[in-house]
C-alpha cells in the first residue's frame, strides 16, 4: 500500500487502483503514511510552513476525526516536483531521515510507517540525481530555450536545492 500511496502522490497511479487507495486512506495507517510522505516532501522543498500546519493538523485532528484529514491538507504540492528538488544525495537522505523522525515524535503511532517511508523515499530518490545533472546537458539542445536568453536556468532556480546534492555527490 505504501508504494501505491507513493505513486498516487507522484501522479503515476492507474485509474483502476485509485478507488482502492482512496478507500485505504480512510484508515489510520495509510493516512499516516500519506501525511508522512507529504511532510518529507515539504521538508525537501523547504516548505516548512506547510509541514508545520500538517503536523499541527495531525496532532489535533488525529484524535477526533482522522478520516477527514487527508482530503483537507491544504496546499500540498505535487510530489513529483519535490522529488526533483530533492535530487538525491546523502544530504537529501539525511533530510528524509530527520523529517521522518520529527514526525515520529509528533505521532507515536506513525513510528513504523515513518521509518519505512524514509527508507523507501531515500531509495527512490537516488536515481533522480541523474536527471538533475542531466538537465543542464539537455537544455543546451532544447530549441525553445533559444527564445530566452538565460531563461532556462529558471528551472534550476525553481528547484529548491538543486546544488547541494551535486556537491555531496
Amino acid at each position, binding site marked *: 500500500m505504501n508504494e501505491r500511496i507513493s505513486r498516487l502522490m507522484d501522479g503515476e497511479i492507474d485509474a483502476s487502483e485509485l478507488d482502492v487507495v482512496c478507500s485505504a486512506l480512510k484508515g489510520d495507517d495509510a493516512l499516516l503514511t500519506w501525511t508522512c510522505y507529504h511532510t518529507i516532501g515539504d521538508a525537501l522543498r523547504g516548505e516548512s510552513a506547510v509541514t508545520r500546519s500538517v503536523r499541527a493538523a495531525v496532532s489535533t485532528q488525529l484524535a477526533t476525526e482522522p478520516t477527514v484529514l487527508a482530503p483537507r491538507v491544504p496546499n500540498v*504540492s505535487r510530489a513529483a516536483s519535490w522529488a526533483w528538488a530533492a535530487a538525491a544525495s546523502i544530504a537529501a537522505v539525511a533530510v528524509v531521515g530527520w523529517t521522518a523522525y520529527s514526525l515520529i515524535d509528533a505521532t507515536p503511532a506513525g513510528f513504523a510507517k515513518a521509518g519505512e517511508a524514509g527508507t523507501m523515499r531515500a531509495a527512490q530518490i537516488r536515481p533522480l540525481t541523474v536527471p538533475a545533472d542531466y538537465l543542464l546537458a539537455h537544455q543546451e539542445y532544447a530549441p525553445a530555450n533559444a527564445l530566452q536568453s538565460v531563461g532556462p536556468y529558471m*528551472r534550476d532556480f525553481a528547484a529548491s536545492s538543486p546544488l547541494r546534492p551535486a556537491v555531496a555527490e
Partner: protein
Amino acid sequence: MQRAFRRSPIVTGRLAPAVFLLALVATGAHAMDAATWLMRASQAARQLDYVGTIVYQIGPRVESSRITHLYDGGREFAKLVNLDGPAREVVRSEGEVRCYYPDAKLVRVEPATFRNVFPSLSAEQQQSLTRYYEFRVLGEDRVGGRPVQVVVFEPKDGLRYGHRFWSDGSTGLLLKARVLNERGDGVEQFAFSDLTINARIDPSMVAPSWPVVPPDWQVLETASADVVARDTGWVVTRVPPGFAKIMEGFRKLRGRRDRIAHLVFSDGLVSVSVFIEPIVAASTPAGFLQKGGLNVYSVRQDDHLITVMGETPGATVRQIAHSVSHR
C-alpha cells in the same frame, strides 16, 4: 448516387492537382510563418538590450527573477538574479555560463550553452513544425504593460505539448510563454511583469556579484572537450514522427567514472535527450519524474540505465525509453 459515385474519380482527378497545390501553398505559408516567428523571437532575445522582472511558474511554485541582457558588438551578456529564496545568480558572458550559489558556496561553470537553433532551422525542421503542430496567430494582448502578439503551436497528436507564446509587438521579444499539457492546462509558464527594451545597460550591470570566487567556494567546471560527438552504438526505434536526431555523442559528467552516451532528438520546437550510462550501484531503481513541462523517465536495461528527458508528455519519454537498444 450511382452516377455521382461513378463521376467522382473524374472530379477528383481534375481537382486533385489544384487541391494539392493549395495544400502545398498553405503548408508553405504556415511553415514560413512559424519559422519566421521563431527566428524573430530568438534573434530578439539575443540581440536586444533589456532589463526586466520575470515571473516563473512551475507546477504550484511561483518565483521571480531579475534579468539584464546586453548585446555588445556581436557579443551577448546576461545576468539572471532570483528574487525569492536563497540569492543565486546566473551570468552569461562570452562562451560560458556561470551559476553562483552562495548558499551552497558553489559556482558552476558551463561552456557556451544552448545553441541558438532557430536562426538555422533546416527545411525538414520547418516541415515537421507545421506537420505536427498547428501554428496559429491568436491576436493581440498585453504583457508587462506592452502590446503583444499571441501565437500558439497546437500539437496534432498526443505526443507533444502545446506552446503558447506572447511576443513583443515591435521587437518580437518573447514576453510570456506557457506550456500546455494534454488537457490544455498550463504546466509551466514564464512572463515579464515589467520590462524595458533598448535600455541603457552598463557592462557592470551584467557582471557577477562575485568577480573573484571566494576561496572557500567550490568551482564545478564542465569543459566543452568533455562532449565528443560520435556514433554511440545505441539506437532508438520509437521516436515520435517528426523528431530527428540532432546530436549523438559521449559526454563526461561530474562524479561519473564512465562516459555517458547522449542522443538528442528534436521536432523543431522541443527536444528529447536520451542518456545511457552503465549501472554502477546495484540499487539503481527506475522512475518517472515531471517538472513543469519537462518529463523524465528512467529505466534499467540489463547493466545500463536509460534516462529520457524532454519537453514532451510523460508517455512520450516513456515510449522512447523503452525503445532504446544497443546495436
